[in-house]
């Protein structure tokens, strides 16, 4: 039996019954696509077109299409790679770490956040693969028999660790996500009317029937997968940070990188989750499931990780001075006052000052402000990676080879193109898959529902909660449904 403190805010508002949950979530899957969704998909597909054109230019004419030069030989590609991988981390944090900590509020956001992880990793993987120049030989990064040459891959290289980290992360996230989807596919299958829908969702549901033994094993497997995903998510960005930290470039060669990158990843990831959730809850009318309380909780995580990132920036600066290494000191002075000072200023403003606004309750519970903050944080975290990568490289040990970097149109096309790829995948997911984990929301429903009328911002922010205690042996009274879509 679960017990919920009386001072907790309800996790699902609107007095939902089990059937209402099924109805509300399946509605989007079963209804015809609405105009707003079609419009959004067309915009996403337009940017996907830009992506394909940029990929064609990069592959056909080579890496010379990018703005790289001999001094700055890593720029937007690796910036975008780290940015996308970082965004993915929030999904795993929600699905694995918050599961282990038994944070029940994760139930209504974990499905979409995990989908975001998978799509973000797909976008991230595009950059190193394209930077290879010959992406059709990308499988050479795996240890193959040396009939392809005479060598094995170099297991001492952090770039190879990345290959293993990212491929493990992608496949593990995909499997974890899919196992969670199976019971919900079964729900859609059992409601499906058309023969195509019935067939597709039967195939997707793997024959799930919801038997007691299957549920018992399902829960065990979920916990084990969460247990291995938790260190995995920390290891992935640790290894990404080692791409830099194990080099001898001033500004990169620091031991603070792994924790600093992991915090930054979760920071940017939660910002992206907020951006997506704020849109999703309005477009799909999920205000009763993704409540203001959820938004405030995500804001708090964003604030904590943002503060860790802020401390890391200051620590880096202090250590550069304290190390008494001239090159290290110059790298940091150059970041703040050199020709790229504007990117450093953007990073500091967006990542250090912005999240501190969340201390104010009004900001934390405000939808428009949260939306703006989440976008600012995403911009700031992109600049963080740009600052780390480009400003450390552009003035190296030899002043005669100092250079500046400016992106080519193809660089920009690839970046906005991956945004198109990401949103295309996310919109297709939101239409054909249940965006909220119905089975999991149903488990918390009885203990967290409040029987008040449907979603009301004023009430959700200030009213005293009315948790419904479990009455042993008596059927739960079915509250009146105030929020019917159908």
């Amino acid at each position, binding site marked *: 039996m*679960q017990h919920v403190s009386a001072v907790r805010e309800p996790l699902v508002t609107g007095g939902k019954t089990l059937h209402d949950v099924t109805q509300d979530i399946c509605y989007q899957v079963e209804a015809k696509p609405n105009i707003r969704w079609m419009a959004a998909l067309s915009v996403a597909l337009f940017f996907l077109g830009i992506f394909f054109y940029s990929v064609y230019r990069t592959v056909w004419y080579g890496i010379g299409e990018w703005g790289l030069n001999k001094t700055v030989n890593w720029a937007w590609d690796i910036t975008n790679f780290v940015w996308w991988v970082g965004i993915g981390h929030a999904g795993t944090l929600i699905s694995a770490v918050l599961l282990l900590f038994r944070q029940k509020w994760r139930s209504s956001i974990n499905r979409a956040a995990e989908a975001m992880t998978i799509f973000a990793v797909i976008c991230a993987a595009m950059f190193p693969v394209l930077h290879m120049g010959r992406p059709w030989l990308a499988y050479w990064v795996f240890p193959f028999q040396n009939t392809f040459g005479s060598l094995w891959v170099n297991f001492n290289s952090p770039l190879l660790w990345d290959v293993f980290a990212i491929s493990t992360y992608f496949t593990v996230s995909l499997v974890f996500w899919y196992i969670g989807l199976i019971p919900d596919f079964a729900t859609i299958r059992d*409601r499906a009317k058309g023969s195509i829908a019935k067939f597709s969702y039967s195939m997707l549901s793997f024959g799930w029937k919801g038997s*007691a033994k299957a549920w018992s094993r399902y829960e065990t497997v979920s916990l084990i997968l969460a247990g291995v995903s938790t260190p995995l998510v920390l290891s992935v960005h640790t290894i990404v940070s080692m791409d830099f930290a194990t080099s001898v470039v001033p500004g990169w060669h620091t031991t603070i990188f792994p924790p600093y990158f992991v915090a930054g990843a979760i920071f940017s990831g939660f910002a992206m989750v907020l951006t997506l959730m704020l849109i999703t809850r309005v477009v799909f009318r999920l205000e009763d499931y993704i409540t203001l309380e959820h938004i405030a909780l995500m804001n708090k995580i964003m604030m904590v990780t943002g503060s860790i990132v802020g401390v890391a920036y200051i620590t880096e600066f202090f250590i550069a001075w304290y190390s008494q290494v001239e090159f290290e000191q110059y790298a940091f002075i150059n970041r703040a006052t050199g020709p790229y000072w504007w990117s450093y200023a953007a990073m500091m403003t967006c990542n250090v000052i912005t999240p501190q606004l969340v201390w104010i309750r009004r900001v934390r519970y405000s939808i428009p402000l949260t939306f703006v903050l989440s976008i600012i944080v995403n911009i700031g975290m992109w600049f963080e990676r740009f600052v780390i990568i480009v400003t450390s490289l552009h003035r190296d040990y030899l002043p005669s080879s100092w250079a500046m970097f400016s992106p080519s149109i193809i660089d920009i096309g690839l970046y906005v193109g991956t945004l198109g790829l990401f949103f295309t995948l996310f919109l297709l997911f939101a239409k054909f898959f249940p965006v909220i984990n119905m089975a999991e929301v149903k488990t918390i429903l009885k203990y967290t529902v409040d029987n008040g009328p449907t979603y009301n911002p004023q009430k959700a922010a200030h009213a005293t909660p009315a948790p419904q205690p479990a009455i042993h042996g008596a059927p739960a009274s079915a509250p009146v449904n105030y929020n019917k879509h159908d």
Partner: protein
Amino acid sequence: MTKRYALGIFEDEDVLLHAVENVRAAGVKIYDVFSPYPVHGIDDALGIERSRLPIAAFFFGMTGLSFALWMQIYMLGFDWPMIIGGKPHIALPAFIPVAFELTVFFTCHGMALTFFTITGLYPRPKVPVMDVRATDDKFVMAIELDETSSQFSRLTQLLRDNGASEVNQKEMTTK
């Protein structure tokens, strides 16, 4: 082969849990219980033993770890030794990341495959279910019926007494 089942439909998980206990106490064998979400405590009520999946997870993890270490030591230490960055051929600290990742990789995929296999989950075009509402908002207790005709009415009474909102009969064809 066609079998007949009595289906007790319940509206609430707590009512179901009590019903499961009482029905078993009355000496009736429950075929299975279908629910839209995991009902906590039903494992004990139904007498389902604790899963041994965590043991399997440990062995999958160990397989991954051993494979990763063997692969790296064999490839760089014995098959084609090379000096990289002045480090020893078998630079164990540098092998930790890949060893860790493959441990997780093997554990996760091993667990997923084991779960699908033992639970009998695989893509199939048609799924026969006891009651379609079991994946929506109803808790369904299925009891296998024998040939005697009086059994169903006795079960109906027993299930109704324990809070079932309806009791149905269903024929299922199993291979």
